[in-house]
Structures are given as structure tokens and as C-alpha cells.
């Protein structure tokens, strides 16, 4: 299982546009992708409602995981979105 740990840099946290872009990107991947806040319970990264419910704010750390072919590529993209200011 590959994973990335990043700090959320956007002022709005992983809400609003960053959350939508994150979920849209995850949805395109033919793999299961999860995201967790800090050491918390991972949720489906393709679910906007689950991602919003994590209530990830600026400065929080998230852990994104995926398994299978292309996992590293999708995780790199998601890590970039999550950490964009």
C-alpha cells in the first residue's frame, strides 16, 4: 500500500474548491483511494461528503493511501492538490 503524508496549506483547508478538485481527481482513478486526517479513520477519497466531514483545516496533516497499479501516480497528484496553498 502506497501512501503520502502532506500538510494542507490552503487557507480554506480541504474544503471548497480544493476538496472538489481532490475528489474529482480521486474519482478518475480506477483504484480505491482513502484519505485520513492525522492518525484518524481513513475515508473514501472519492466521496465529497466524507472528505468534507473530516473537517481538514489549514495546517492539518492528511494521509492519502492507494493500492495497485498507478497508485504512486494518483497519490502524487492528490498530494499536490492537498498541499497547494
Amino acid at each position, binding site marked *: 500500500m502506497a501512501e503520502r503524508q*502532506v*500538510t494542507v*496549506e490552503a487557507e*480554506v483547508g480541504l*474544503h*471548497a*474548491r480544493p*476538496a*472538489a478538485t481532490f*475528489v*474529482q481527481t480521486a474519482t478518475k482513478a480506477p483504484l480505491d483511494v482513502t484519505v485520513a486526517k492525522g492518525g484518524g479513520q481513513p475515508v*473514501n477519497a*472519492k*466521496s*465529497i*461528503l*466524507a472528505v*468534507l*466531514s473530516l*473537517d481538514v*483545516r489549514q*495546517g492539518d*496533516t492528511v494521509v492519502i493511501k492507494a493500492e495497485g497499479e498507478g497508485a504512486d501516480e494518483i497519490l502524487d497528484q492528490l498530494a499536490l492538490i492537498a*498541499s497547494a*496553498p
Partner: protein
Amino acid sequence: MTALTGVGVSPGVGFGPGYVLAYETPVPAPGARHGGDAGAERDRATRALEQVAADLEERGVRAGGEAQDILGAQALMARDPGLAVGVTGLIDAGKSAARAVYEAFGGYREMLVDAGGYLGERAADLDDVRDRAIAVIEGLPLPGLPSRAAQPYVLIARDLAPADTALLSRDVVAAFVTEQGGPTSHTAILARAMGVPAVVACPGATSIAPGTPVLVDGVSGLVRPAPSEEEVATARNAASARDAALAAATGPGMTADGHAVPLLANIGGPRDVDGALEHGAEGVGLYRTEFLFLDRTTAPSGEEQEAAYLEVLDAFPGGRVVVRTLDAGADKPLAFLPPQGEEPNPALGQRGLRLLRAHPEILNTQLAALAGAAARSSAKLQVMAPMVATAEEAAWYVATCKEAGLPSAGVMIEIPAAALRAADLAEEADFFSLGTNDLAQYTFAADRQVGALTALQDAWQPALLDLVALAVAGAVEHGKPCGVCGEAAGDPVLACVLAGLGVTSLSMAPAALPAVRAALSRHTREQCRLAARAALAGTSPQGARAAARSHLPGLAGLAL
């Protein structure tokens, strides 16, 4: 009908007939069940959600801009895989498609409402998606608004969904008024983007009879049904006078009698420079350097840093640029600056200067890069340290900066201890910069991130003003300048008070500069001093503000 009051979230004055949006989707009965064909029922629900998603997306594309983002996020909600699983499960248990949709949304809705704040305001978006899906399933008409009108109307609603408002324009809507919503609600965001006045959190607004002429002031939050012609004219004149006054005040910041108070910009990197210049910033009063360091496994090289510093310096030839050295800490952890132990209270932990002292190589590289950039530019570079508590820390920092070849080194005053012993710190530092946000957090023991404590974050709190006065007095004793770079500096009324207290420069978000420039230019230094004295005599933030305003007559012309 008497005037109503809400929260003004988009400035300007609007007047027109009230259009009251009263649309409610009936709640499907709790016992509503389908006829037994779960597969067909699941298809109905799935098709309805997809139709709603496609419709929202299509409206978004037509509207463009901010609205497109918002409607796109709503479309994602309609297509949420977790929600689909919930709906399917409920239908398999016998619930009708409409009831299953209602209940599946309910769980998420509760979670958002419980979270409050920004997420709480998203509950309205979710409700709108739910109601649209239920309307499609039940064959009910979808909510709609007149997108053409002979005369622009004042749109009044309990709350507005972005799908309702996205396709409206200022030719059609004179103002928005909602009973619910806050400053970050979509109504507020879209109204500002459209340049239409808006008042939210205005109880009783939907009881205004449809068609009643309504006057809306998006600054004061006043909503007056059936105003007199005179009231409309007065409000309109005040709004245009304000616009004219803001546009008329140009040039460097100074009081009416010519006492200079340089107006500077707070920036987070080279990308913010254009906004600062556009609003007439005379320099940079706070350059946050964290952006260079976050989300990296190793510290940025000296060359990379130097380039980023030089880019900002070059935008202000001959001007002043105050750079805050790295302000990292337990809540903004950096892989290459490991915390030295567990920190249960990050705000009280090893952050700012405390962390840099534990990692001198990081500070030395940053200072060398700053000195390198300064040598290649005509701007006057100053550096300052975050989170300084004692004169000893100030002395250490200043000595370190001087060794690096930086001639001007100051400290931020954001810890009450530093304000209380400001004279001791002023002996060591070349200047002060007051960070009022953190100073309020530490003075009132009130976490900045906790929404419930915002009243204690009010920069008009008399205890905070006392500490500002103490810091200024300490600086004056040693002939050192003392600026302010917190939110307080961007409040035009408070800016006059700060100038009256003896603050020597004000640094703020670039958009706040014009109103502060205009407010200062309309008052003498003596009026600012009287306002400051009156504010210090207050016993509450409201009292301090009201007392200060009574000495600042020029605010009336700005409709502030």
C-alpha cells in the same frame, strides 16, 4: 413595518421591490415505502440524483467563475458514492426513493450542522441538492427565479442556494437579504463577486410582503421596508460619497494635518505583490516566509530563498520591506525542523523564534539569503522575529541578524510579556511590529481557531488596547518605531485609534488599504489622539469603539 437588522456582507446600497422566495420541498412521509420492486426504485433514485448533478453542472458552466466552483461541488454531492450506498440500503429496506434520499442526506446534514462554522453553512448546499432530487423523483417543479425583471428586485429568502442565484445578474437583483447564512455563505460570496449589496442573518426578512419596496444597506446591515424617498436618497448619497471619498484618497498614508503613517501590505509571497501595488501599498510591513518552507522534506536552499526575497524587494524600489523570519511550530510542522518533544498545546509550544534557536542553521541560511537579496536591491530590507517573549531573546536575535550583515532587526510584539516589558525589548530591537491577532490570543487565553471565542479576539478589547499603548510607550522611550501588522490595522476606525496611540506604520491585507487611507486623511493627529484616549477609557469593545467614533467625525462621510 419597522426596519430589520442583519449582518452586512457585501457593501453598497440597494433599493427595489421585494421578491420573497418561499419555496419548500415537502418532506417525504417517514412511512413512505415503495411497492416492492426495489430495483426499479433504486433506478428512480439514481436517475434523479444524476439528473440533478448534470443540471447543476450545466448551470455552473453557464454562470462561470465562482458560481461554477460552487455548483460543481454540489454536483459532486449528488454523485457521492457514500450517499448512493446509503440510498440503496434504505430502498432495499423498503423505503420509497424520495424518503431514502431524504434520510441518506440527513446523516451528512447532521454532521455538517454539528461541525458548525464553514461546514455548517454548507448544510444549505446539501439541502438544496436533496430538495432538487426529491422534486425530480416526485415530479414537482424545481425552484426558479425571474431572471428578467422590469426593475431590479431585492431578493429575500430564508436562505439562498447557489443554483438559485448563479444565473442572476445585477441588472435583475438590487440586493440580497437572507434570514440565515453568515459571512462565508454562498449568498455573501456571490453577492460580493456580483458587486450587489447583501445582508444575511436578518431575522424576520421573509415576513416582508412581496412587492414592498425595500432599502438595503450592505455595510450597516439595515433592511428598511417601505422607506421614504428621503431615506432612499440619503442612503444612496452616502454610498456614492463613500465610493468617491475612497477613490479621492490617494498617495502615502497621512493624517489631515500631514503626520505620515506609512501604509504597508501584508503578503505571503511574490504572488501577492501585484495586489499590494494596485492598492497603493508604500511597502511591505509583513512578508511571511513560511510559503518557502512548507511541504518540503528539506529546507530550501539559500539561492532559492534569495530569489524569492529579491522578487518582492524589486517591486518596491526605495521602499521598505519587512520580512518575518520563519514562523514555524508545532501546528505547522516541518520535516526538517522536528519538534523536540510532545506538545499538547501547540500555540504555547516551541514555535517561531523558539524553534529557530534550536535550529540555528535554518535561521543562518535564511538571514544570509536575505542579506544577499538586500545587497542586490534598492529597497530597504528589515527583518523581524516572531514569538519573542523576553529582552534576552530580542538581544540574541538582533545580534544574530547583525552578524549576518542585516542592519535593521526588530521583533514582533505578540506575547503579553513582551508588551509589558516593551521598554526592555526596545533597548535591544531596532523596531517593533505588533501582531494583534496572536497578542489577543495570548492575552485572553482564547484560541484563534475556536469560533465560539471570536468575541475575545475583538481587537477593540480594552485590555488589548492597553497592551498596544504599553508597547508604543516602550518603543518611544528608546526612540524606536512601532508598527502594527495584525487585523486591527485594516479596520479604518481602529487604524485612526492606533495612529493616535503613536503607532508609526500600519500593515494590512492590501484590499483594506483604501478605506484606512481615506479614514486617516480625514482626521488630524489630535483627533486620532482624542479618539485613542476615549477608546482606552472604554470598558468593553463596543464602548471603546463608540467612544472613539465620537471623536472621528470624518467617518460619516465614508459611511463607515
